[in-house]
């Protein structure tokens, strides 16, 4: 019996907490996602090498036409 037709023999490990039941694999995935989310908020975003267009459009365009209000 090859891998494609062999049924899963092990159901994996599960965490039980009241009415909540979740596999350890899924719990790890959710934990990694939370870490990524927090890191995305805290880790500084690298500045572009030229550090130009994102920060300096005012200087490039002049400062008197802020008519978007």
């Amino acid at each position, binding site marked *: 019996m*090859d891998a*494609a*037709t*062999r*049924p*899963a023999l092990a159901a994996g490990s599960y965490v039980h907490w009241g009415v909540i039941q979740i596999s350890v694999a899924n719990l790890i*995935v959710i934990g*990694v*996602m939370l870490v*990524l*989310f927090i*890191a*995305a*908020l805290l*880790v500084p*975003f690298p*500045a572009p090498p030229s550090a130009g*267009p*994102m*920060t300096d*459009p*005012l200087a490039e*365009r002049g*400062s008197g*036409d*802020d*008519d*978007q*209000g």
Partner: protein
Amino acid sequence: MTRADSNPLTGAGTGPERNWTGRLRRRINRTVPPGQWLPDRQPVYLRSWIYVFGVATLAALLVVLGSGVVLSVGGSAWWHTSSVGHFVNSVHLWSVELFFAFMVIHLWGKFFMAAWRGRRALTWITGAVCFVGSIGTAFTGYLSQSNFDSQWISTQAKDGLNAAGIGAYFNVLDPAKMLLWHVVLLPLVVGVLVVVHLLLVRRHGVVPPFDALPPAETAQLGTSAGVVAAAESIIVSAQATTAEPADRNVER
């Protein structure tokens, strides 16, 4: 436009064209102004990793679609038995895993930003519906593996859907129907929603931070560093989006 106004060689007139292509072009330009489909400058507040997860979701979706096309060419006998088929099958699976992980982090970020502010409710709604549609697409993918796993999942899904009272509307035990839903119907729905979502993002711009103020109010601000930074960010965004819809990047 009269015939006298038109160019006899090209048919183009000097006034606004009344044919369907001219109307469509003007409609497209009204929907998203020229230059905003693929902008090369962004507001300064986008300098945060949290804004990366939207485009990461899109990149993962492209890998999902590409690997899915290859799987459809090879067929189930190929993806179950050959090493290359196993690899492409795994690429399809893991790109879906990344797609959902990135999409959920994107959703968390937008939720805590209250990204529906500034007439962006439809952007939020299309994203949420797209998320639900993606879940359905992924579940029908589980049913399309053509192995014992998909058989087991289909029986569990059948029981769950019957318990929810909606089992009479579609049959998850029909692998042909579920395969067609997975490769045609649901990707089409998700694809259209993604396009509309992106179009709305380009039309209204990325939601600014809570402390960003409209440019008119920034002129009255003091010199507190935080306030100045917020004012600078919104002024930059307004400057970068001149000649766009008035609500773009400016919180109302």
